[in-house]
């Protein structure tokens, strides 16, 4: 089962690498099985050369890396949808190379897109000023002028 999964992954990768027609990588599951069932005792199987064997091994390794990479992307994507605290906790265990290994910025931009879009009504809020002198009601200050909001923290 695992081998069949890897083999189909290998086909995809081989296509990308331009070696799909090398003749040693299964083109599709159905063709492979048809070949096995139609084989007669008189048929002679081609003996793979050393180079072909290495190609097959390389395709298997690349497929395994590809599958692992997809798993990593899925893991990071899922973490990006968690709360900021949980996401930070996950990322604290990751090496910095993770930013190079996955399309981090694209994923981050999509995961943190939020529900608020251009043209939507801005959600109202009432928050205490840092100096605790007053409570700011957003709708009140927005009545008379546009408002720029900068969300952020120190760290």
């Amino acid at each position, binding site marked *: 089962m695992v081998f069949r999964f890897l083999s189909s992954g290998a086909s995809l990768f081989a296509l990308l690498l331009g070696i799909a027609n090398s003749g040693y990588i299964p083109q599709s599951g159905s063709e492979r099985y048809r070949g096995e069932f139609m084989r007669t005792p008189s048929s002679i199987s081609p003996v793979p050369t050393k180079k072909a064997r290495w190609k097959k091994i390389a395709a298997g390794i690349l497929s395994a890396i590809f599958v692992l990479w997809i798993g990593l992307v899925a893991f990071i994507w899922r973490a990006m949808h968690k709360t*900021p*605290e949980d996401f*930070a*906790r996950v*990322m*604290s265990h990751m090496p910095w190379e993770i930013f190079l290994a996955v399309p981090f*910025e694209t994923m*981050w*931009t999509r995961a*943190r*897109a*939020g*529900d*608020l*879009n*251009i*043209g*939507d*009504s*801005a*959600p109202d*809020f009432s*928050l*205490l*000023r*840092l100096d*605790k002198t007053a409570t*700011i009601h957003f*709708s009140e200050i*927005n*009545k*008379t*002028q*546009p*408002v*720029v*909001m*900068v*969300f*952020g*923290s*120190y*760290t």
Partner: protein
Amino acid sequence: MVYITEAHPSDVWQMESNVKEKVVFATPKNEEERAFIAGACVRKLGIKFPAVLDEFGNSTEKAYTGWPDRIYLIDQNGHVAYKSRPGPFGFKADELGANLAKLPKSHTSDKLQPKPE
């Protein structure tokens, strides 16, 4: 400025740059501690514009998806006129400047107009 939950507290996901810049704070455990860090931020960075503190349940951050940092421009009718991409990649003040310039003059006070360079 809306002060929200820390991006890189020392007990969770501290960055080397935080240590270099001596911005080392653990996750605040209550609103008082958050206010303390926010105060330090405003003082040390010399932030002049009004700053408010998101409540400890992070309701404003959730409503605006503001973490770790983000810029919004809300027009006088209460509609979102500009929303930056999420920080740190999407935090671009020049984009805000360009969108401020697009607002009708009658909608902007002198304070909000970008200053000519």
